């Protein structure tokens, strides 16, 4: 069964460093998302991406964040200068080409980012 894969599963970085989280969405999907979940809190939307551009972003997704789909396969989230409060699980998700309310989003296993 096709799945969304994320790497690495765990990333530890020093405050102020740049990190890139990688995702390979399901191959025929066209809508891509990043969500994050701070420990003990709810899953929060960060950004959506369609047709090679950001379609929507939350207030969390400030200038320190960027997304890219460099090669038609990978979908990356970059945090330019990490802060302690960026520590969280980051989930990538993708959705099919069908734009209908019942098209489900499939999530990856997540990357646990720890900023020290």
């Amino acid at each position, binding site marked *: 069964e096709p799945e969304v894969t994320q790497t690495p599963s765990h990333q530890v970085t020093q405050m102020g460093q740049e990190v890139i989280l990688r995702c390979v969405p399901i191959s025929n999907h066209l*809508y891509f*998302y990043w969500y994050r979940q701070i420990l003990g809190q709810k899953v929060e*939307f960060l950004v959506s991406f369609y047709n090679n551009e950001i379609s929507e972003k939350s207030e969390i997704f400030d200038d320190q964040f960027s997304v890219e789909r460099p090669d038609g396969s990978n979908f990356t989230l970059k945090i330019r200068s990490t802060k302690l409060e960026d520590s969280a699980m980051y*989930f990538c998700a993708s959705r099919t080409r069908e734009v209908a*309310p*019942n*098209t489900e*989003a499939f999530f990856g296993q997540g990357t646990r980012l720890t900023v020290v």
Partner: protein
Amino acid sequence: TQLLEQSPQFLSIQEGENLTVYCNSSSVFSSLQWYRQEPGEGPVLLVTVVTGGEVKKLKRLTFQFGDARKDSSLHITAAQPGDTGLYLCAGPGEVSNDYKLSFGAGTTVTVRA
């Protein structure tokens, strides 16, 4: 952002008992999805409900979407320890153009053997 309230926050029951988890909102949702999440892993989709009043069954799990599409419930019959996990409801809402999801805070279900 459409808000989804889940209740209860925690639920601990004995194997073989039944349980119901609720997901409520003041907003209308075009659909609602239920996910189950294990510690340290991503949400795994269980079901999507689309039509008001819809009932879907997945083995011992029954999902219902409210007539007004503002609420949903998940009922587990004869719960087993393997049902332990965090149950999340999520929905795209009416105003989202790209169907980003708003999540509830989740219900942590523990089924004791």
